[in-house]
Structures are given as structure tokens and as C-alpha cells.
């Protein structure tokens, strides 16, 4: 542990030294380190390196499994930190859960601080800046069908994968979509720039943004889920209305 801590100090010093024109750590990085210690270190370990034995909390598996409880954050870069923190995926309420979209716990400044801190742990990808306006929606739909619709449903309304849920993408921002594609959070595949180029990614994002408010020329959209809500409307709107009509027209049995 002591060697680790020393290494960490060295790393931090190196980082500090790398910051030009600043003798002391900037307040932002300091804040990031502080927040990391508060919210992340228990699972991700000191310095973003997972420890052989981390301090578990809640009903975690750490008590029985002496393995790491969370992935190392060295090299994940600002991209991953930005994604997990701004979606509210992290911090997890307790271990072993699938990260789900939740309320973001941090202020904008704290977010920047934490993202900066995680990025400082090792060289990693930056937060991407996608350009969906350059994308082509039709190409996006095609790519989305090939790569995404199996889990996220063709209109990006989310779906089920054995053992996990593919979230609906209504709340996903362009940046978050771009990040998720490159990270592959939880059981999602990870798509490299070779598999899905940045240009193709722009098209996919353009389609997902379109799918948030698609052409609902048919009227009430019913969540773009197709037959399940349609069946509910059939029974609880149409059949109910028609049964009431029948009751208004015909007699009811009087008991006697």
C-alpha cells in the first residue's frame, strides 16, 4: 500500500509539474481529487487503479470475492468520466447493479473537476464533439438497424437483453451517444472508429436525435412501441368505449 501511495504521489507531482505556470495544484484538480476520494475511491481504488481488496459497501460482493469490484480508470480518459458522471450512471447506488440513468449528483464545476481528475490518471480519449448536423438520417437509420436496434429497439425506445436492459435513448445527448458507442457501457458492445467511423457516428446520432421526435403523422404516438400499446388502446379505449355504447343502447338485467 505504501509503495502504491508513493507512486500515486509521484504521479500527482508529475501531473502538477506538468501544469504550466502553476506551482501548486489548481483548485479544480484538487477539488476533483477530493471528490474522487469521497465518491469513487471505494470501488475504483486509489488513483483509479483497482485494488485487490477494495472497501465494499452495501450488500456488495467484495466480502466474498477478493477481486476488484470496479474497472480501473487509468486510461479511460475524460470521455468515460464525462459519460458516466453526466448520465448519472456513477456513482452506483450499490455494487453489482447495471448503471442506470439517474439524477446527476454533482454541480457543473464538480463535474469538470472530477472529469479532469480522471483524465489526469493516464492518457485517454477526450470528450468527443460529434456533429450530427453533418450526418445523414437515412444512413443513420440503416446503421442503427445494423448495430443498435437489436437492443435499443428500432425507434430507440430501449429494450431488453437477457440479464440487462438497453436504455431508451430519449434523454441521451449527442455527446453521450458518441461516448457510449466508444465505451460500450455495461454489456453493450464497444465500437471502434474502424467499426463505426466518426462520420457514420454523426449519422447514427442524427438518427437518434430524429427518433426522439419522429414523424408521428398518424397521431398519438403510443411511445413508438408498436403492438403492445396498440393492444392496450384497443382494449382500454376502443373496446371500453364500444362496450359502454352497448350498455347505453341495450338493457341491463335487473336483479329480483
Amino acid at each position: 500500500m505504501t509503495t502504491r501511495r508513493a507512486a500515486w504521489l509521484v504521479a500527482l507531482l508529475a501531473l502538477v509539474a506538468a501544469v504550466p505556470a502553476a506551482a501548486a495544484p489548481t483548485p479544480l484538480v484538487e477539488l476533483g481529487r477530493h471528490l474522487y476520494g469521497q465518491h469513487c475511491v471505494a470501488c475504483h481504488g486509489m488513483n483509479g487503479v483497482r485494488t485487490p481488496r477494495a472497501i465494499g459497501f452495501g450488500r456488495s460482493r467484495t466480502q466474498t470475492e477478493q477481486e476488484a469490484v470496479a474497472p480501473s480508470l487509468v486510461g479511460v480518459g475524460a470521455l468515460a468520466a464525462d459519460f458516466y458522471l453526466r448520465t448519472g450512471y456513477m456513482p452506483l447506488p450499490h455494487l453489482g447493479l447495471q448503471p442506470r440513468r439517474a439524477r446527476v449528483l454533482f454541480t457543473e464545476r464538480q463535474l469538470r473537476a472530477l472529469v479532469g481528475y480522471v483524465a489526469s490518471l493516464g492518457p485517454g480519449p477526450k470528450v468527443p464533439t460529434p456533429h450530427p448536423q453533418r450526418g445523414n438520417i437515412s444512413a443513420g437509420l440503416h446503421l442503427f438497424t445494423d448495430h443498435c436496434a437489436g437492443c435499443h429497439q428500432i425507434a430507440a425506445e430501449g429494450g431488453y437483453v437477457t440479464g440487462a436492459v438497453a436504455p431508451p435513448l430519449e434523454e441521451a445527448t449527442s455527446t453521450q451517444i458518441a461516448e457510449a458507442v466508444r465505451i460500450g457501457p455495461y454489456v453493450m458492445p464497444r465500437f471502434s472508429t474502424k467499426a463505426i467511423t466518426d462520420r457514420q457516428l454523426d449519422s447514427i446520432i442524427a438518427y437518434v436525435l430524429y427518433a426522439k421526435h419522429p414523424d408521428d403523422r398518424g397521431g398519438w404516438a403510443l411511445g413508438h412501441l408498436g403492438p403492445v400499446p396498440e393492444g392496450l388502446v384497443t382494449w382500454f379505449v376502443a373496446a371500453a368505449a364500444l362496450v359502454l355504447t352497448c350498455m347505453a343502447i341495450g338493457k341491463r338485467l335487473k336483479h329480483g
Partner: protein
Amino acid sequence: MGRAKDVLISAALLVVGRHRRPRLGDGERIVPDGPAERGWESVAIVLFGLAALSALAFPILYGLDVSPSTQLLGISLGLSLVLAGAGLVVTAHKLVVTEEIEEDYPPEEHPEEQELVDRIVQESGGRLTRRRLFGLALGGAGGAIALALVTPVVSLGPVFRISPLLGTPWRRGRRLVDEDGRPWLASDIEENDFYTAFPEGADDEELGSPLILVRLPKHALRLPEHLRDFPANGIVAYSKICTHAACAISLYRTPLFAQDEPRRALVCPCHYSTFDPADGGSVIFGPAGRKLPMLPIHVDRKGHLRAAGNFDEPVGPSWWGVRLRKPNP
């Protein structure tokens, strides 16, 4: 001018004015009389009037093509129908009498008639001496004609040939290409992602065509003996068509943090049959009764992926012969 006005007024009176109720002929009424319901009569008239207005809006909206046209057209037509229907319901309940008439149910049966029918048939056949043979011959003719008439149904499809069900376009040396026909390089296939591949130059829509490719770390592979040499550099190729109900397997579950998350699997979104890509495509969960067919592949000198043979099992949903036969090359 004044004349036109008179005509209009008299026409209006004719329509709106209340008439004395018609006097019917003498004798007993068939439909009993009831009191007039002027209020309800007005309600019905108003409903019909509104229905007419709403219906008239339809051609106008249609002509103007105002957006959102489907909604406006639907409201105008639907509303007019509902209003007219409501007018009729009011008519039924308030403006015509609701009689409660009593009547006999039809007789349960007609034994004499049954007897007569029987006798007619029996007596008509009185001249036949070998009734049973006659009946057999007639029935035989009828059956044979029916058989002849349904025979052309066989032309609908290759009903007696099962080889099309076993056929796949894959054969040794055939390159794996993507949807646009570009050959897949082994180096294109990365871990934690999935790829769809097709046989070069074949029909993509055939059930035997599409493959799902994934690359697994060497240590993760747990293939049975006879499938040991099916992968190439850790890349495994499976039929993309689920062995349960022929849907396309377009879900690849690949954990980011293996210790804590569900393990790698290929999943079909129709009924969630879940297959293990590491051990030859066995079923982990769901209704599929058969493992996913695996295709042997190799990497050629240019680094392209090629088939090294055909699938180990027939592709597509199970039928009676899937365990008896091997897929056709």
C-alpha cells in the same frame, strides 16, 4: 323578387314547421302509439345536423389538405359517424316505441318432415339392387375427383424435396463480405464488437447466408473437440439466424467489467434465446432447442476471412431433419 322570398319562406316552413301527427287508418294499430317527445326530437335533429356538418367538413379538409390532415380528416369523419349514431340511439330510446312482444320460439324439431325427407331419399333409390357397391363407386369417384382437383397444389412448392432447407451458400474458400460486398479482413474484427457477414456473391436474404462474427480472447474459447479449428485467430463465426424462430441475432452482450456483469452472449430479440459464443453456440437461456450453427473460417494470405467449409449443423429453425442431416455445400 317577392315571389322568390315567398318560395323560400314556404320551403322553410315546410321543413321546420310542425305537422299534425298523421292520422292512420281505422282498425287496430300494429305498432302501438306513444306520446310525442318534442325535446328529444330536437336533440336528435341537432345531432343529425351536427353529423352532417362534420361530414361536410371532410371533403373540404380533403381538398384543402390542411395539416395535420390525417387527424383532421379522422375527426371530421369519425365525429360525424358518432354523432349520427348518437342521433339514432336517441331515436331508438325516445322517438319510437320500444315494444316488448311475446312470440313462440320456433318448434324444436319437425319429426314428420324428417320422416318425409328420409322416405324421399329411400324411395328414390328403390331401383338400385347393389346399393353398397353403388355407394362405394359413387363415393370413390367423388374422392378420386377431389384428389385430382387438389393435386395441382403440389406445384406451390418443392414439397417433397428437403434439400433446399439444408442448403447454404457457404463452401470452402468463399470470402466473408459485409452488406456492401466489401471483404472482411481479420484485422477488422475487434473484441467486444459484433459484425454481420455474408458469403461473397450470394443472396444476402437466404437464411443460410448471414453470419455474426465476434472475436474472443484466446483464453475465453471453450470449444468442444470437433469445433476446435473452426475459429480463425480467435474470431468465431455463427449463423445469424436463431435456431428457435428464425429471427436475426443482432444482440451481442459483452461485459465491460467481466467480474460483475453477465457474460458474453449472443441474444435473439424475438424470444430471448441466448447463446454462448465461446463454446460453439450452446443455448444458455430461452426457448431455442438447438445450438447455433458454427461456420469454420480461416484467414487467407491477404488477411481476408474465408469459409473453411460449411456449418456444423443445418441453419434456421428446427424441423424434423435438422439432426439427421448435415447442411448442403
